[in-house]
């Protein structure tokens, strides 16, 4: 059941990418409205799928929250991204950011659909049998999702011409640089708070399962590297008044660290590598 829902959600997210781009290029407001409602439908389906998967795991007798392997984390990542994006769209009344954000949640779902990602519901190995699992995964992925949106707004900032000319063609439709800069900063602060929460819940959990709150495991270390990069960004911004391009570049660097923390660490030995 949940598997079919997720295939449909992947398709819907693909559709919202097309609609956001079309609304942007053709400047048609009904396309924008459609894009929003399609994305809302996709996110609702995404959330419902997670609930169904949770129920299914109980029907199989191995009940646990759907946050235990790469597949489930990707689906949840996608859900967080779509949720945060929609929140921003409603709050700032701006649809053009959807052009940068919608490919992110579509790609996360598309990656989860690849055959090499095991989509089966597996029982929890002993190390994951803890209530900290839910708190740790949710906080980490909310953080990742916020950093992903910050990455999207930073990219838009960077492709926008700097000299203040309104720009021509579709580049001219990118939101005001100030708004992008502000959004990047907001998302980085939100992400930083949740990444901190994610590292801390992971730390408390590690102390309960393995007897130490910090062990320099590659995933732990990479989450710290990510944290340090965003901490630098916040200091450069708040104390040294950095804005605009330099912040956008640091935000991109931070997101590369996020991606490596999420996926790259599987290439390294350690306790967090997905099976």
């Amino acid at each position, binding site marked *: 059941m949940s598997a079919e829902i997720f295939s449909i959600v992947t398709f819907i997210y693909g559709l919202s990418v097309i609609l956001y781009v079309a609304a942007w290029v053709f400047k048609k407001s009904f396309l924008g409205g459609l894009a929003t409602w399609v994305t809302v439908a996709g996110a609702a389906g995404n959330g419902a799928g997670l609930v169904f998967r949770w129920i299914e795991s109980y029907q199989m007798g191995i009940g646990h929250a759907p946050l235990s392997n790469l597949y489930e984390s990707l689906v949840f990542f996608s859900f967080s991204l779509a949720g945060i994006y929609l929140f921003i769209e409603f709050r700032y009344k701006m649809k053009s950011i959807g052009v940068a954000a919608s490919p992110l949640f579509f790609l996360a779902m598309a990656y989860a659909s690849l055959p090499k990602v095991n989509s089966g519901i597996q*029982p929890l190995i002993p190390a994951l049998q803890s209530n900290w699992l839910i708190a740790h995964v949710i906080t980490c992925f909310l953080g990742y999702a916020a950093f992903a949106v910050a990455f999207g707004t930073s990219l838009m900032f960077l492709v926008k011409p700097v000299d203040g000319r309104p720009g021509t063609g579709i580049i001219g439709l990118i939101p005001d640089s100030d708004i992008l800069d502000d959004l990047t900063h907001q998302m980085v602060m939100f992400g930083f708070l949740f990444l901190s929460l994610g590292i*801390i819940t992971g730390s408390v959990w590690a102390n309960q399962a393995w007897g130490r709150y910090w062990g320099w495991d590659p995933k732990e270390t990479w989450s710290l590297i990510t944290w340090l990069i965003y901490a630098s960004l916040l200091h450069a911004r708040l104390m040294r008044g950095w804005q605009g391009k330099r912040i956008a570049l640091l935000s991109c660097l931070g997101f590369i660290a996020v991606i490596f923390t999420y996926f790259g660490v599987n290439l390294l030995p350690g306790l967090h590598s997905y099976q």
Partner: protein
Amino acid sequence: MRDKSDSGGMLDGVWRFFASVRLTVAVLLSLAVTSIIGTVIPQNMTPFLYLRSYGEGLYRVFDALDMFDMYHSWWFRFLLLILVVNIIICSINRLSATWKIIFPKTPVFPVVRLKQAKHKETWQVADSPESVKNRFLSYIAKNYRTHEVQPEKDGFLILAEKGRWTRLGVYAVHFSVLLMVLGGLIGSLLGFEGFVNIPEGESAARIRLITGNAEKDLGFLIRCNDFDISYYENGMPREYRSNISLVKDGNVLVTKDIRVNDPLRFAGVNIFQSSWGRTPGKRFKVVFTEESSGVTYESEASLGEEVQVPGDKGVLILDDFKSEFSFKGVNLGGVFIGRLALKDQEPTNVLLPVEFPRFDRMRRGEHVISVSDLAYSYYTGLQVTRDPGVPVVYVGFVLMIIGCYITFFMFHQKVCVAVIEKDGQTQVAVSGILGKNRPGMAAVAKQLSNRLKHLR
């Protein structure tokens, strides 16, 4: 600090160096970059493994730079020390300045800056300025900590502010980092971390520490009463469980089933389910099956003991047992490794997986050798730690989250509500400033003006 310059320009320079945020950013990024090394070079392995992967020359260079235990190296600790000094000096420096802003003797509103602030919401009301005054004032009084009214030509200004104390949030974050470093220091000075393997039914008093080949006496015995593994239907492990007792002078202090995620904590010492293994029973049977006839011969055996090959054709010695063994990517489970010395032949190695009795056919010998009647005894692998720094670190965790929340999402805001009569119309303008370089004033102005518009 400037008035200290007469006591020595040098000291002043050092102070300024450590008080700079440029240093903070440099140290944070240096920590980030150097931390990568330890995720690429596996840490704390045996020199033998490093020599094999890096070769003699590179090994010596890496070893000299403490690359194999880099997070405990002098240079990594030195970076942390700089960060700590940087945080302390910066906090002292800024707090002495911020203190006057947070707790001023007489609060002053920068009227001109407020009126000219970038984000402004304006609208018109039908009533005269005086008639909206009380309405606005009662809302402001309820929602802002301090406020005052200043008369203006054809109207008035309401100046208000709140959230001065939120400027302290950032110090909470920085103090939390210091607490975490302090907790880590306490742990490494007063704590320990070690491992011990205990066979079922046996006890251990000493553990092997993970640092420097040392052992530690715990002052009590850990007895493993029972060890169990259970599996899911698909073969994945479901639970590792050890029933252990702590025993002192013959008295059982405590008994508990420990699992992964469910340790035993006793008098500051924590005992975790960490690994497990099995050892073969002392006596078992070696079975020789003649390939041509299918006839079997059985012989009692034990590890390291010579076993006669049927027909006096030679001897077999089983030297070693591995509880898990992979052969060409296939997990064979428990295997015996032995030497077979047949008369008039070179001795050869044999691999005898307990669960695959026909495996030895691959050797194409006269007999297929297998092992049967093997009883295992299990041992539990426990991690034993003591870390008195944990409470300090946890206080740091809580402070970090509270501090980040205050710093990021609560503001010191000063607002100005200007109500001016102009051309027979009453104009209201809401503007304000937030703590420096903070985004979000536009949202604050919008929200406040919405509230004021809908006041009854």
